[in-house]
């Protein structure tokens, strides 16, 4: 018997609104369509009526989870057009914030994924450990969600020696819970049964559809902007880019768990080698010079790109924001095919989608 099963835009397995239509034969999904746009806020349009400092505040609100990534990438654009050289210490602080953001984002995703597969004790355990990262972010930036750490020309808050010491201690503290989470995630029978062989995206499909970030790396595509096209201070640090080639939901779990270790490694290197000097250029309100640029940042979910056009005034002439979910969401119908309806929520969530980001 054929059915069309609607999921969303509002559904318990979805943290944000998306509508999926599943065309099924009995329990098996034969085809699927996804519909987005439920969070479209016209942010690109709003940005054309704002100056650079106001835009930093605006773009941080594109997404509550990767807010720093948005401000970071926009600031890189303004600095490039205006020819500003950010002080090294400012660059390092931005990177530390970005990697802490990746940690909290991956912990958040892992918790949600466990909740969807019905492993609620693991969900609560992961989110409990995530609090340690959230506390660090709060101590570093003063905020738990929109960190406001970036300004044009550097970072907004410095790291004192005392905070630096405590952050380094926290890197050690994080290792034990992460080891525990990794051990459970990679060996637990329930997690394996619900994720292995489910929602497979082959390497060929990932390349064909343009998948990016951990989602692509779980399908054997070895891409990471931090390594392939270094920016800010990323060229100063040694880290690995975990790549797994099975392409299923389990592979996406493995990649994100391994990435957490790499983020801790980057944070540790940045803290141990934190340069002396100013954290920013003291830029007040810059005019955005006439010109155009594109900057890319490896956000927690993959490559985030910003295009900025300036016309010599204080306001942006045009910004164009393209987020990882923009590239990864179109892969969802391909992953859903020949899986069961019961796994649909998990497969959609496995790309770590952010529809607020996507819709802007």
């Amino acid at each position, binding site marked *: 018997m054929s059915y069309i099963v609607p999921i969303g835009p509002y559904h318990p397995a979805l943290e944000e609104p998306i509508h999926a239509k599943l065309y099924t034969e009995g329990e098996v999904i034969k085809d699927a369509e996804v519909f987005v746009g439920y969070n479209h806020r016209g942010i690109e*349009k709003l940005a054309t009526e704002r100056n650079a400092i106001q835009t930093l505040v605006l773009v941080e609100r594109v997404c509550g989870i990767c807010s720093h990534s948005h401000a970071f990438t926009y600031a890189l654009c303004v600095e*490039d057009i205006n020819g500003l050289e950010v002080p090294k210490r400012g660059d390092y602080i931005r990177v530390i914030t970005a990697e802490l953001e990746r940690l909290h984002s991956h912990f958040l995703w892992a918790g949600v994924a466990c909740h969807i597969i019905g492993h609620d004790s693991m969900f609560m355990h992961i989110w409990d450990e995530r609090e340690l990262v959230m506390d660090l972010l709060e101590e570093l930036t003063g905020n738990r969600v929109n960190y406001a750490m970036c300004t044009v020309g550097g970072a907004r808050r410095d790291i004192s020696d005392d905070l630096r010491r405590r952050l380094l201690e926290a890197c050690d503290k994080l290792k034990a819970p992460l080891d525990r989470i990794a051990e459970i995630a990679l060996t637990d029978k329930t997690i394996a049964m619900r994720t292995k062989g489910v929602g497979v995206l082959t390497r060929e499909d990932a390349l064909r559809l343009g998948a990016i970030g951990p989602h692509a790396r779980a399908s054997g595509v070895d891409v990471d902007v931090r390594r392939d096209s270094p920016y800010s201070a990323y060229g100063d640090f040694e880290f690995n880019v975990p790549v797994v080639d099975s392409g299923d939901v389990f592979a996406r779990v493995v990649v994100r768990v391994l990435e957490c270790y790499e983020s801790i490694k980057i944070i540790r290197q940045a803290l141990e080698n934190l340069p002396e000097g100013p954290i920013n250029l003291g830029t007040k309100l810059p005019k955005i010079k006439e010109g155009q640029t594109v900057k890319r940042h490896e956000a927690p979910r993959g490559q985030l790109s910003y295009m900025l056009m300036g016309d010599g005034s204080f306001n942006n002439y045009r910004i164009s924001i393209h987020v990882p979910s*923009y590239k990864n969401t179109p892969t969802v119908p391909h992953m859903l095919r020949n899986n069961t309806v019961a796994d649909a929520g998990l497969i959609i969530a496995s790309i770590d989608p952010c529809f607020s980001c996507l819709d802007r």
Partner: protein
Amino acid sequence: MNLQEYKRIDIKKDEVLPLAERMKKEGRFLVMIHGWINKDGTPEVSWDYAVDPVVESYHVVGETVFPSIGDIYCEAATWPEREINELFGFTFEGLDVSKRLFLPEDMLETQGKGQIMVTPLKELVEKNAVGGSSPEGEVKA
């Protein structure tokens, strides 16, 4: 150390497809397609490819109809093409625009007219304010 570079290259619209084919063959990632209208009113679209660590940005100026590269880059191309069609009204030949991407279903009738990005913000606010009128003259909340 900032190795990311941006390189602008102007091309004609009949070079868009061969370029996309070449980039795909070389395994280049399509970073994004952007559309906008310049201050002097000329439309412009750019196709950005990652030739790491450089972003090569290919621009076509003064056209509103372009070939779709959806057959080459699949949804990585068709989604931004559909977005540009909705928000700016530019046409991509061969692109299926029978369904909306970002705009609400009830704005399908304005699809392809570039209402959002082209209309000045003040006019949009007036049109969509309580008591204001939609393009068909209906009251919108």
